[in-house]
């Protein structure tokens, strides 16, 4: 008698509690779990960190490094959605994400995220070096455990400290190319670190209702819009000079210096308007400009570096 037939008197549980519903998840749902928009910024900043680093990396190794950083960031996004499914369901901005919308089960997202996290770190270590892999592992851990599980629901400083996770990619790119951590990569880290609060707090000014409903203690919910506007200006005032530091330290040229000064002035000007105006127009403009600011800063840093190589560092 087999084990199967021995169990004949066992009644097979029926109904929803015993059977997982057949998945309706499309390929796009799994892609959405990776937070592709966040991933694009991560890939871009990592690319710049990798390209401006003094070390040499074979193009295939560079491609694999970027792929691993992108997948690692995506894994962190999937694990974030796994943990935050309850509050995502309460916010209009996130209610249609694959888990709260019911297209992907939480366990699937957990397995998906963990597989990609472990895989991306292992391949990055094998393809480049274990410092870069360690930094990627720490970034995923920081975003999931420190930011998502701990800070996000407990303090209005959540995105300030948690912003470190988004600031690591250029440092990982730099480490992949050089095997080390230079002052230059720390500066790139600091630029993104100080960019994050004004960027997210500008968004949170008009999403405060969402965050309040979900019980997320974002600054406008806990301290009010006026205090948020003040903090945005403080961080913008710290960000603007930080953006110029690569030029002041001499590892980028005049082109970057001029653009970073102008962009810094732009972000401060918008932050001052956010501080002075009661409406949300300036906040929305600052949010949009902050994305452009980071993109332009890193793009010009890369262009300046390439130009410097072509002209023998004369720019």
């Amino acid at each position: 008698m087999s084990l199967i037939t021995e169990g004949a008197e066992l009644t097979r549980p029926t109904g929803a509690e015993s059977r997982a519903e057949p998945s309706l998840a499309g390929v796009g749902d799994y892609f959405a779990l990776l937070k592709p928009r966040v991933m694009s910024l991560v890939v871009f900043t990592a690319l710049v960190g990798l390209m401006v680093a003094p070390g040499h990396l074979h193009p295939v190794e560079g491609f694999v490094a970027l792929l691993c950083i992108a997948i690692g960031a995506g894994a962190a996004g999937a694990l974030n959605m796994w943990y935050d499914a309850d509050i995502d369901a309460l916010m209009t901005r996130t209610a249609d994400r694959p888990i709260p919308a019911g297209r992907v089960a939480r366990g699937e997202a957990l397995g998906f995220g963990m597989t990609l996290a472990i895989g991306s770190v292992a391949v990055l270590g094998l393809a480049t070096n274990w410092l870069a892999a360690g930094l990627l592992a720490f970034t995923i851990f920081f975003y999931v455990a420190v930011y998502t599980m701990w800070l996000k629901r407990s303090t209005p400083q959540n995105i300030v400290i948690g912003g470190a996770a988004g600031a690591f990619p250029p440092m990982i790119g730099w480490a992949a190319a050089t095997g080390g951590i230079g002052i230059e990569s720390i500066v790139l880290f600091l630029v993104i670190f100080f960019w994050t609060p004004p960027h997210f707090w500008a968004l949170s000014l008009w999403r405060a209702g969402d965050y309040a409903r979900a019980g997320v203690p974002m600054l406008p919910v806990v301290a009010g819009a006026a205090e948020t506007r003040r903090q945005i200006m403080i961080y913008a005032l710290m960000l603007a000079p930080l953006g110029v530091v690569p030029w002041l330290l001499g590892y980028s040229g005049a082109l970057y210096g001029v653009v970073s000064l102008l962009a810094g002035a732009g972000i401060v000007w918008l932050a001052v308007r956010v501080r002075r105006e009661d409406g949300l127009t300036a906040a929305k403009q600052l949010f949009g400009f902050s994305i452009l600011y980071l993109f332009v800063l890193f793009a010009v840093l890369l262009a300046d570096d390439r130009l410097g190589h072509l002209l023998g560092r004369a720019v």
Partner: protein
Amino acid sequence: MTIMDQDGDDGIVLTEEQKRRRRARNIAIALVLGALVVLFYVLTIVKLGPGVLQRPL
């Protein structure tokens, strides 16, 4: 009698939409696995160089 053939239950019957999405997922997994095979092959050649084929017998 086994659990499998109790009560004549046909089990879960997928709708056409569920079948279509399962097929799309399967194709995506196949493409990703194929891409990984190519990637690891190319990476191995790049890391070890053509000398990987010249081993003493």
